């Protein structure tokens, strides 16, 4: 029996579009764009100026804050500009433009390390300096995760990849399984754990086999089959499935004794220690019914998405939506000039614009949002509170616990965008909770 959690739903995954396609390495393009925000945390200040020559793996920007992650060049060449550029969050972000000289000379500071001969502090410092963040999309700095305040008993690699369409982690499992396991071993070393777990959804049986057959596999690495169900890869649901533990409301995985690392992040950690190069190349799935040849690419970070779409044969017909990330939680884009960043795992283009919502349709109280909510909330109740502006009741219905997976909106037969209403009331609830906490503090 595959491990899982209560709630959730298997959303049609469309992974067959790309899951059997080997990853193709793309050449770099003429100019690479490096947004100075590819992480959650303190903003960066550039450490290069226009005209500087930079190498592959050379740091472009950093911050002196702890919760932050520097950005590195993925090509060698000259810094030609530092200016605002469109980012997949939809906003303009200061970005470093590097003209690629196509020599791909590696920065001299990038040398391999054997983590077993290093102190834990040095390993963490190396990871921080390489700007490794949660590559699944969240972008939380990995070195922070690896220094939890509480004692941790489990380190989990998240290979669930439960979002439809995306197959980039799956391809890593098939093509570079040893890197995922090696990355996990580095995390185990830092956390002082003897065993590590890799959770993989059962729609990736070949991925699990590949991991088990890899040279790095041993009896301390546990491959856990997970039920094919969205959102199996959500951090709290993954922890529940593998360890049976509940992360309490408002707490972090570490409070449940767990650290969760994305599979791609593990690959990047492995690359860092084996080659010395920080994350500069990553797998990106280009898919959707508007793409001529849906593909998996290995892309140098900073490549404009337009180039990826061209390499995938361009559009079959005019797409109505371009999505960065998966269709359940991804962000729609209004142009395709934005570059691939550390957190880009896929680019989707859809012809038939997936659903606009109908707020006229009545809720028939079918209860599907309630029975499928992975956080065991009552989405339709919270959405109701949101419409009425009833913050207190929304708080009582635990609105703040919503992880915004989108399943309630997906599954609603009345075609209501429940999640959007929940999102609308969350900031008010947060304000209320903080206000109360302050009052109680005094």
């Amino acid at each position, binding site marked *: 029996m595959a491990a899982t959690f209560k709630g959730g739903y298997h959303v*049609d995954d469309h992974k067959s579009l790309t899951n059997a396609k080997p990853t193709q390495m793309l050449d770099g393009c003429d100019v690479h764009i490096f947004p100075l925000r590819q992480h959650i945390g303190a903003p960066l200040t550039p450490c290069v100026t226009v005209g500087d020559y930079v190498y592959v793996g050379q740091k472009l920007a950093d911050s002196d804050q702890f919760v932050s992650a520097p950005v590195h060049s993925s090509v060698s060449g000259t810094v030609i500009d530092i200016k605002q550029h469109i980012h997949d969050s939809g906003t303009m972000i200061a970005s470093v433009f590097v003209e690629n000289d196509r020599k791909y000379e590696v920065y001299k500071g990038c040398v391999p390390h054997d983590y077993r001969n290093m102190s834990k502090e040095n390993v963490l410092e190396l990871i921080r300096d390489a700007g490794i963040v949660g590559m699944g999309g969240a972008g939380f700095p990995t070195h922070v995760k690896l220094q939890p305040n*509480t*004692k941790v*008993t489990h380190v989990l690699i998240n290979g669930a990849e439960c979002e*439809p369409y995306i197959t980039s982690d799956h391809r890593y499992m098939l093509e570079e399984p040893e890197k995922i396991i090696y990355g996990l071993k580095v995390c185990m070393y830092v956390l002082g754990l003897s065993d590590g777990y890799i959770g993989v959804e059962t729609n990736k049986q070949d991925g699990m086999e590949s991991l088990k057959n890899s040279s790095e596999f041993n009896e301390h690495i546990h491959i856990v089959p997970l039920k094919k169900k969205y959102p199996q890869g959500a951090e*709290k649901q993954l922890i529940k499935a593998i360890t049976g*533990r*509940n992360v*309490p*409301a408002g*707490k972090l995985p570490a*409070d*449940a*004794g767990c650290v969760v690392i994305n599979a791609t992040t593990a690959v990047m950690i492995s690359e860092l220690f084996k080659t010395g190069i920080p994350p500069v190349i990553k797998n990106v799935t280009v898919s959707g019914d508007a793409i001529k040849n849906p593909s998996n690419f290995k892309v140098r970070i900073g490549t404009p998405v337009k180039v990826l779409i061209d390499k995938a044969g361009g559009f079959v017909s005019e797409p109505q*939506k*371009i999505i960065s990330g998966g*269709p*359940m*939680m991804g*962000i*729609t*884009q*209004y*142009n*395709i000039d934005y570059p691939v960043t550390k957190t880009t795992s896929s680019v*989707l283009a*859809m012809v038939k*614009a*997936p*659903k606009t919502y109908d707020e006229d349709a*009545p*809720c*028939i*109280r*079918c*209860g599907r949002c*309630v*029975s499928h909510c*992975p*956080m*065991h*909330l*009552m989405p*339709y*109740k919270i959405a109701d509170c949101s419409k009425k502006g009833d913050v207190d009741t929304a708080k009582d*219905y*635990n609105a703040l*616990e919503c992880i*915004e997976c989108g*399943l309630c*909106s*997906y*599954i*609603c*037969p*009345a*075609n209501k*965008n429940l*999640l*959007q209403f929940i999102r609308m009331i969350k900031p008010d609830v947060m304000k209320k909770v903080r206000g109360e906490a302050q009052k109680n503090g005094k």
Partner: protein
Amino acid sequence: MENNLIMSSSPHIHTSSTITKIMLDVIIALLPATFVGVYFFGLRAALVVIVAVMSAVLSEWVFEKVTKRKNTVSDLSAVVTGLLLALNVSSLVPLWMVAVGSAFAIIIVKQMFGGLGKNFVNPALGARCFMLIAWTGAMTTFSAPLADTVTSATPLAIMKDGMDMALPSVWDCMVGNMSGTIGEVSAIALIIGFIYLLIRQVVSIKIPAMYIITFAVLTFLFGKNPMNAEYLVYQLLTGGLLLGAFFMATDYTTTPTTNLGMLIFGIGCGVLTFLIRRFGGYPEGVSFSILLMNLVSPLLERYTVPKSFGNRGGVYHG
């Protein structure tokens, strides 16, 4: 090109399920029972079904026209209401009463309270009880199966009043060869319909299961003939228990959406049905039980809000 891109918040895909498809599934699930009813009670039963459905649809259309609301006939919910009402009355009920009943269900019970999703009791059941009280004689006169005109007592009435009449065989109760309302007579047809709904994941088994189990246990232990398996089987197969449990007590709008709420709802229906049948004036009691539970379902839901993921305890102390 870029100017035509749609910007929206996630999620960007959507299930193909719609309200209309759900209603269509319910209609399909009710068809076996409808056909069996027409087979045993003849064309008269077919007429009742047609009049009930037409009256329901027409009432909805007219009401929405008059009140200038969005037309919702196409969501098929009015068809379901009309069909359910038809299956819940005798084939001998005068057609004008059926038409009035359907109109009552749609206009008074459903639309006056805000339409689909807002009604506080099941419209078909509300109308049935209205008809039962308004025209008790007509509503409790039943046709014998395969004989259009002869009136006959239902098995439950026979058992209740201890009448000196032969009960139909258990097999007859399974296929529907007994007197009763159009849709309640065939257990097999109802079970087939319900299995279809379960396969299509339209309804959950929780309420019907709790309802039937609770009722069966109480009847077996404390019924008129306790510890009598045969009596229990008759009690389960007759009196619209299956029709009510499968198709009325699973109505979305008037039942709780929470897990625990559904279980309590089912148990409540079972207890009330047992009490009415055992101690009440009516031989059956399914309709009143479900109606009464409909009324408390908002309360049930309010007190059975599921524990959220993060409030389930399990804090790890390492």
